[in-house]
């Protein structure tokens, strides 16, 4: 076991730390040990301008007392430092210890979703990926004049020990390759971006998705934008292409179904379990158990196995995304969605890979059914106000649909809607479910975690498009 070998951490140590954490009467405590080694490279102007490696190590101690949480952490794994953090976190409760003794033992992992790969090797191979991306983007079109490429990986070892006796170890690789391209024609400069990765080893970029594919796609997007006209403004029918546009679900429903917001009754979806919240065509799932995916985990950051949770089934709201605290308070089972950015952060309910199941329609039939509307192929970021339900997401590649055909590209369209309302206006769902390529990062209350999204081609009857005219 990684932490035993490197830091002489034994099960008796874990029991001692957990006992200290509960010394003031807390009901539940957990320890989150984390060791991350990262490496990254970046290419700009055909030069490898930056190469970085780093190590981050620490332990977070959490104590629950009723609905209260005490949290402390240390970046030094010496026993006296961890005991000190445990004492600080313990003070959320005020009383005598109620535990007799804590016995922990390591559980066998339920899932094995990603390969165990080495960390720091393969430097020359990574350099080669950058060069290949640069060459492919520049070769795509002579109007491509700037290319940037970045490669980053992180190898994260985590050990989670809980006062109810569970010990879980996991090794979580995460890699990502991204390419940015700028195209110029006269004074008109436009950008394109593509990338991907996941909990995969380096050979993913040789065999599954090559730097050439990312580079050509980034270049293609930039070139398409050179021709694009201003986006329209006002309410219209919108068709979302498959894959990354699944960010719609992440913003429109995913955040609103996180259990912390619902237990506090501050979400637009609060109190709607069992009610119709989307069109009957919509079944939305959060699944942390898909092998190799960016949002997947063998165990969540509270030591619970990840799972597949049906959030919305045929339009009916079925479940919320739970973490340890919310499931305790709501009397629900944990769904394996307790996640945190690092040992310095408290866990909270977060999405893993969130997507809509495929329907029955052919994508081309969906487009043909639109007389005048917008087709969105790729998006940038999105954001939601979970209380009012208002969400936005910005299309980075979209086209007008005129008389059932995709015609001119348009640029700069932000879409805005109300989550529950928009989900009721989904009138067609394609059979072409696609997951994104593994580049998404979700932010909530200052914490970033990697996530996945996915969607088949869908038609939304009416949503506000925010172009200039």
């Amino acid at each position, binding site marked *: 076991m990684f932490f035993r070998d490197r830091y002489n951490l034994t099960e008796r140590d874990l029991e001692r730390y957990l006992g200290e954490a509960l010394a003031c009467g807390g009901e539940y405590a957990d320890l989150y040990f984390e060791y991350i080694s990262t490496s990254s490279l*970046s290419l700009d102007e055909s030069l490898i301008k930056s190469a*970085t490696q780093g190590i*981050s190590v620490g332990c977070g101690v959490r104590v629950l007392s009723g609905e209260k949480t005490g949290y*402390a952490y240390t970046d030094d794994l010496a026993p006296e430092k961890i005991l000190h953090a445990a004492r600080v976190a313990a003070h959320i409760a005020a009383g005598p210890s109620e535990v007799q003794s804590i016995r922990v033992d390591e559980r066998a992992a339920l899932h094995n979703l990603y390969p165990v790969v080495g960390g720091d090797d393969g430097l020359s191979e990574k350099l080669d990926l950058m060069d290949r991306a640069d060459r492919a983007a520049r070769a795509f079109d002579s109007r491509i004049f700037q290319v940037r490429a970045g490669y980053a990986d992180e190898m994260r070892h985590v050990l989670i020990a809980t006062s109810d006796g569970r010990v879980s170890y996991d090794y979580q690789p995460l890699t990502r390759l991204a390419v940015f391209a700028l195209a110029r024609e006269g004074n008109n400069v436009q950008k394109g971006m593509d990338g991907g990765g996941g909990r995969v080893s380096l050979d993913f970029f040789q065999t599954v998705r090559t730097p050439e594919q990312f580079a050509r796609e980034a270049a293609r997007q930039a070139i398409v934008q050179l021709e694009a006209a201003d986006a329209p403004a006002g309410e219209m029918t919108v068709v979302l292409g498959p894959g990354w546009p699944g960010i719609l679900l992440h913003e429109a429903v995913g955040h609103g179904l996180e259990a912390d917001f619902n237990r506090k009754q*501050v979400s637009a979806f609060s109190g709607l379990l069992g009610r119709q919240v989307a069109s009957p065509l919509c079944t939305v799932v959060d699944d942390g158990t898909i092998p190799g995916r960016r949002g997947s985990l063998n165990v969540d950051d509270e030591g619970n196995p990840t799972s597949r949770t049906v959030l919305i089934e045929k339009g009916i709201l079925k479940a919320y995304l739970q973490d340890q605290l919310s499931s305790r308070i709501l009397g629900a089972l944990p769904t394996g969605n307790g996640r945190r950015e690092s040992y310095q952060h408290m866990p909270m309910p977060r999405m893993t890979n969130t997507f809509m199941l495929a329907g029955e329609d052919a994508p081309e039939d969906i487009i043909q059914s639109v007389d005048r509307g917008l087709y969105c192929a790729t998006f940038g970021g999105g954001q939601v106000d979970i209380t009012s339900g208002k969400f936005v997401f910005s299309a980075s590649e979209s086209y007008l649909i005129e008389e059932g055909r995709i015609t001119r590209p348009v640029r700069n369209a*932000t879409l*805005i809607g109300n989550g529950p309302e928009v989900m009721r206006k989904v009138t067609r769902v394609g059979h072409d479910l696609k997951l994104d390529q593994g580049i998404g990062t979700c932010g909530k209350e200052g914490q970033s975690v990697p996530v996945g999204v996915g969607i088949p081609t869908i038609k939304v009857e009416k949503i*506000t498009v925010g172009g*200039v005219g």
Partner: protein
Amino acid sequence: MVDLATEIVSRAVRAGATDAECTAVEGQEFSANVRLGEVESLKEAGSKAIGLRVLIGRRSGSSYTSDFSPGGLDRLVDSAVALARITSEDPSAGLPEPEELGAAGEELGLYYEDVAGLSADDKIALARRAERAALDADPRITNSEGGAFNSAWSRRALANSRGFQGEYRRSSCSLSVVPVARSGEEMQRDYWYSLSHSLAALEPPESVGRRAAERALGRLGAVKVETRRVPVVFEPRTARTLLESLFEAVNGDSIYRHASFLAGKLGETIAAPEVTVVDDGTMPGGFGSSPFDDEGVPSRRTLVVESGILRSYLLNSYTARKLGLKTTGNASRGLAGNPGIGPGNFYLLPGPYRPEEILASVGEGLFVTELIGFGVNMVTGDYSRGAAGMWLRDGKPAFPVHEVTIAGNLSQMFRDVEMIGSDLEFRGAIAAPTLKIREMTVGGK
């Protein structure tokens, strides 16, 4: 801290680096969250980390670690030096020239002891009072995401192989509240906050709470409007996001890559003649103030836009060499990689109008109090974001508006600044007063 950084620099030079730069940071954070009067969470901890950048000729490599053990520090030096042997020869790479290094002499007022002196119970009490004021403000405030008190202090040290050594401390504290207002089925939330280097300068908790409640209440009954082109007024909280975009647009990294709509526009008119924008890293008490930047160059005041004319980009030593200019002391970095560009205190100078006068000038238009989404394209200046606020009719607030977009192009929007408020205040390193833009597309029904 600075001694350790200096020691790491000399070890890197002994290991073969021709130049080296080391940053060491340590800090402590505390947060108390209160919800509906009850403590929800308490967090308290400290951490430290160290970052190293080395050059071997014109090749650079970098590394960071939170492991301060002898083995951890050895590995820090070894990996940075090893990486500098595999990166490309970059003619512009390097540290600042020795004569460019130094520290601004003024007393900047960044560190106050009073923040650390407050007990956890007192901090909880402040968060409670702020939330209580919001909950008591109106019966329609029915729920809350809570009140929070956060405090932190940090120490940052920098040393390089060209003789620079420096260290400074910062303290901060903040108080915030997120109330939820309800009317029938409709729920709206908003927030307000106060942020300061010293406890003494923090706004009273009651005023933070009441302001948050007023904002949430003001959103009840919001409707969507017809799509049309109208004047748009940004209150300071939303106007500052336009300045954030302007900062990105004058960032030297975007300029040399031609990835900004302001690339190549030095000396040209880019905004209305009333618009003057300054970046000042030496403003006493400023949230973006520091004695020196993250390369050891003294912080300074730079006139960025003068009466509508673009006078300066914001640069570090690398982007300055790329563009044939001088660094403006805006190097900014975490622990890893090459320095980027960060703001000092970046703000638009206040104008002559009271905010009420600006609102009164609008026959029919939108007053924007909230923006969401990321629809700003820095390459083209294309701008399209989700907005909420108040509809203005005959110079008066008519009804709240939500679920609309506002769209335009930043280069046109800065030229179309028609009125500038006198109400500049800092709630972060970037700030702007109330701004009126002549016309934008409001996308709605």
